[in-house]
Structure formats: C-alpha cells, structure tokens
C-alpha cells in the first residue's frame, strides 16, 4: 500500500489495492443507487400497488395506480364512509428491482420463450454475436490492409481516402433497404450493415495510426537495406501493432452500436429483437437482464482482449507482466541486474 500518498495525484499511479477498491466502487455505486430507488419506499415510488381495492370500482388487486389518484379516491371514500383501499408504494414496471432482474436473469436461461417460435435469450445472443463477428471480421480483412497501405504510401491514401471519407458520412442504416434487396432478409444484410458501419471508420483510423509511426524507425530500416516490402512487413506492421490492436478494440465497440440497426432490417432477430419483444410484453425484468448481459459480454471480452494484448506485446514499456512471464524473467534479470551497474556506459 502506498501509505500516506494522496488519492488524487495528477497523472500519478494508484497502488494495486486502491485500484481494486475503485473498481469495486465503480460497480457497487450504481447498484446501490438502483437498490435505494427500488427498496426505500419514500425514495421516488410514484405509484401505489393495490393490496385491497376497497370500494373503488376500478381498482383491482396488484394494479399500479398513480399516488395522487390513489389519495384522491381514498379521500372521497373517507368522506362518504366507504371501505378504504390499501396499497404499498411502488415503482413503474419499467424499473424492476435488482432482485427481480436477478431472478429474470436466471429464468431467462431456464424458462422457454413466451410465444412459440420466439428465441431464447441465449439463442438471440448467439445470433447477435455471430453477426458482429462476421461483420467485423470481413471489415477487418479488407480494412486493415487498406488502412496500413494508405498510412504507408501517399499513393494509396490519395486514391482511397477522399472517397472513404465521403462515404463515411452516409449513415450505415441508410444502406439497410439496399442490403436487404441485394442480400436477402436473413443474416447477410445484417452482416453487411456491421461491415459498412465499421469499414470506413476502420480504414481512416488505421491509416492515421500508421502515419503516426516514428519515421526515424523507417529511416533506420532503410539505412539497414530494407526494401519496400520488408519495410512494410518488418517495420510498419510490427511498429503499429500495439496501436492497431487498441484501435481494433475500440472499433469492435463501435460495431456493437451498429448491431441495433442491423437487427431491425429484414427478418428481425438477435438480442435487439429479444429486448423489443420483451418490452412489448412489458417484461422489463427480462429487458434489463438482456441489457446487462450485453454489458457483461462487452466488458469481459474487452478485458480478455486487453490481457491477450499484454501477452502479445511484451516489449511495451510499463506493460504489466503475466505471472508466468514474471517468474521466467526473474531468473534472467537477477543475473543481469548485477551487471547493469558496470555495463551501464
């Protein structure tokens, strides 16, 4: 622990335990707010859930009634001496309590869909993941090489980037109808939308990343006799690898935002469709469960990619070593460090 050190140090570093504490707070704080709004009766709770309808003709058991209406009716009843309605404060259906979502979370994987032919939550999810995967893969297969070429050779930059820049302002959804006409109504047009949404940004982002490569490395390689092809594959590609990898992580996040549009065109399917279906049935517990699952998938996959990145690029300064690598390196370094002092010329 960094004893006595302040928590707020500009551009400073936080100790490992502090990082964990903050990570924990970043998730528990919103959860706590949600729990307070859900469970503390005098916070918000604009509705009343009827326990006993009393003499009010249109009240039924378990109905959700505006608090003002409830009070007005009861006042009327009190004046006329009727049987007073009772109820407990409640939130609207679109804000289920955490435990309800937790239950729905569990149930959505264990109970069959309400209507025959509808997809289970995990089936919808799997469909969505496949659409993202193929859309992003195809975009990357084409976009990454083009981006790198554009960043390396002004020739490719001049011949493609103006057009790409022009197309990028056309919203991907605008191509929806066209994609369906050309590719049918199933997965293909959805993949195409993800492709269109990702590709043009990808080319420009990667071209820029490539241009940021330290030119002195390129010059050093040239004076070592590297030809054009060797420069590209032995200097440019490894030189931008770290940044490229991080770009891809960000681009993958963007691809998810195009999913919403993609799943609306042709035959609706996937997680977006599931969410809308459940909202139509007013099963908001399921809606929240689905949204949270998307969050979990996004977050964990990004963590995994981050971890993989650190394994892939061991030359990065300040990269946190994996336990295995740290153990392997310790042997080598212990012999080296003693030499450093002498050899440090």
């Amino acid at each position, binding site marked *: 622990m960094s004893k006595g050190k302040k928590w707020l140090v500009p551009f400073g570093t936080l100790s490992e335990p502090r990082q964990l504490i903050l990570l924990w707070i970043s998730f528990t704080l919103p959860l706590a707010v949600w729990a307070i709004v859900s469970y503390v009766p005098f916070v918000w709770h604009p509705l009343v859930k009827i326990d006993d309808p009393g003499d009010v003709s249109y009240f039924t058991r378990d109905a959700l009634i505006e608090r003002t209406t409830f009070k007005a009716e009861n006042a009327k009843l009190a004046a006329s001496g009727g049987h007073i309605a009772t109820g407990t404060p409640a939130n609207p259906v679109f804000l289920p309590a955490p435990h309800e979502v937790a239950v729905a979370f569990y149930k959505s994987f264990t109970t069959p869909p309400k209507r025959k032919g509808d997809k289970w939550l995990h089936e919808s999810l799997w469909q969505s993941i496949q659409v993202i995967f193929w859309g992003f893969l195809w975009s990357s297969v084409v976009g990454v090489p083009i981006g790198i070429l554009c960043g390396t050779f002004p020739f490719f930059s001049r011949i493609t980037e103006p057009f790409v820049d022009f197309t990028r302002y056309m919203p991907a959804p605008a191509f929806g109808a066209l994609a369906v006409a050309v590719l049918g109504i199933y997965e293909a047009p959805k993949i195409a939308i993800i492709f269109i949404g990702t590709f043009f940004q990808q080319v420009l982002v990667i071209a820029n990343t490539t241009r940021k490569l330290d030119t002195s490395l390129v010059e050093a390689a040239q004076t070592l006799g590297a030809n054009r092809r060797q420069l590209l594959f032995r200097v440019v590609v490894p*030189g931008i690898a770290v940044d490229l990898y991080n770009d891809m992580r960000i681009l993958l996040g963007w691809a998810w935002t195009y999913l919403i549009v993609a799943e609306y065109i042709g035959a609706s399917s996937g997680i977006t469709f599931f969410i809308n279906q459940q909202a139509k049935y007013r099963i908001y517990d399921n809606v929240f469960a689905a949204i949270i699952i998307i969050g979990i998938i996004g977050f964990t996959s990004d963590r995994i990619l981050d971890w993989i990145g650190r394994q892939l690029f061991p030359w990065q300064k300040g990269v946190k070593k994996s336990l295995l690598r740290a153990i392997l390196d310790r042997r080598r370094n212990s012999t080296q460090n003693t030499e450093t002092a002498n050899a*440090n010329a």
Partner: protein
Amino acid sequence: MQTLNLPSHLDQSPEVAARFSKLKSRPVILDVKHLNKTFHTHTTLNDISLQVFRREFMCVVGPSGCGKSTLIRIIAGLETPTSGDVLLEGTQVSAPGSDRGMVFQGYTLFPWLTVKKNVMFGLEIGGRSPVESESEARQWIDLVGLSKFENSYPHELSGGMKQRVAIARALANNPRILLMDEPFGALDAQTRCKMQSYLLEIWKRVDVTIMFVTHDLDEAIYLSDRILVLGTNPSRIMEVIEVPVPRPRSSSQFLSPEFLATKARLEELIHGTEEAEPMPLPKIRLTHAGDDVE
C-alpha cells in the same frame, strides 16, 4: 587566454604528418562533388565538395542549421540533393543502402525486437540464414559489451546502451562508411566520454570509415583525423582541419597545446561567424536594482 603562446593548429609533429600522408594515400571511399541542396528558396548546402579516405574518422562541425544533418542524410540516401553527386567507392549513391550505416541522435532501435534481433535485422533482410545472422549478431553484441542483454528489449536499456546496440546494428551490415548524426547528443557528459573511447576502440578493430556530426568541439578533436567545418550564410566549407593531436588519443590530451590550438581555431571559425546579436532589454525589470549580478 593562453592563445598567446599556443602553436598553430597547422604545426604537425613528424609522426602526425606521416600519419596524414599515409591516410591520404589510401583509396577514396566517399567522394562528394558539388553538392547543392535547396529547401524551397533556402539554400542549405552550396557547392559542397569533399573526399573521405578509407578508414578515416571525419567529424563535421558547424553552427546550428548549417546543414550538417542534411549533408549526412544526403550521403545516406535519405534526402535527394538538388544537384551534385555522392560517390561511394566510385559508385553513384541515390537511395539508402546497407553499404552506408547510420546511427541517429534519437534512439531508433526497433522497440518490438530484442537487442539480438535488432542487430540481426540488417543481416536477415540481407538474406542471411537465421543461424548465420544470429552467430554474427552475437559477435557484434560482444564487441559493444552487451552480451548479457542480448534478450532484453530496448526499453530496458539506458541511453548509452541503446546507442551501443545501434552501433552494433549498423556495423553488423558491414557498411563501407558509418554515418553518425550527433549520436551521443542526448547522453550525459560522463556516459558520453565513455562512449567516445568505446567508439575509437571499435573503429580500431573494424575496417570502417566514420563520418560523425557533432556540436561538441572537444568530441570532434578527440575523435577525428580531420574535421570538416561548415559555415552558414552563405553555406560553404570553411575549412578542413587536420587534427595535429597524435594517436592513440586519451582524455589527458585535452589540455595539450595541439588540442588547444585546434580548439581555438575551431572556435574562431564557428563563433567568429555566429556573431551573437545583442539581446534586447526586457521591458519589465525582473530583479531589484540592488540585486544585479554584474
């Protein structure tokens, strides 16, 4: 100053004179002919001609902006001259090639390669087998004294160590000439001193000609056979000084009469032209009247 009783930098002892006549009898490695370089309208190099002999150590000095880097980059093939020729062993130079090694002021090791892989880079792209390049790279790493670090990444090395790797990497290609543009400029004084003697040791052991740009006049005298002094406004070669300090060099020679005479001449050439413009007085008085330093 002591300039009064200094000898002329032109006075050479018989040994030194013999050394120079031997040097000049060697074949010309680098022949620069009427080189001109204009950026937009600004003439950076104007009719530069010079010859460097095989195994010579030549330093290039001159005021900032006189075109030292430009000259060395043209020789490396990284910049194209507006007119004029660069001949390396009689062959015209037009693009970068492995026959001219270069060490830059900034650290240009490939961060994604270990020390060994960095040194192997030129060998591998030159078509040598991995086994062969590895054993050859090891020898060069040995020469610069970094065998213990062959598997380290550049970010794990100090500045001096990085430059030693850069020298090994350039020399592994077996270049005819090694071009160095202020390679020790970013190092602290002590490390710099060590690196200079290192470089001389390496140069003794390897058949290579060195052209070395520097700002540091002591460094130039300590290292060179001859010093090329470039001038600015107008751009020209002011003088090519034959350093009268005998070899082998050591730091004890820094106060020898030959050394001081050479330095005096260099300072006269460089600072004589760089007439410092009087600085305008600041409008605001920053110190109290009584606190004036002089």
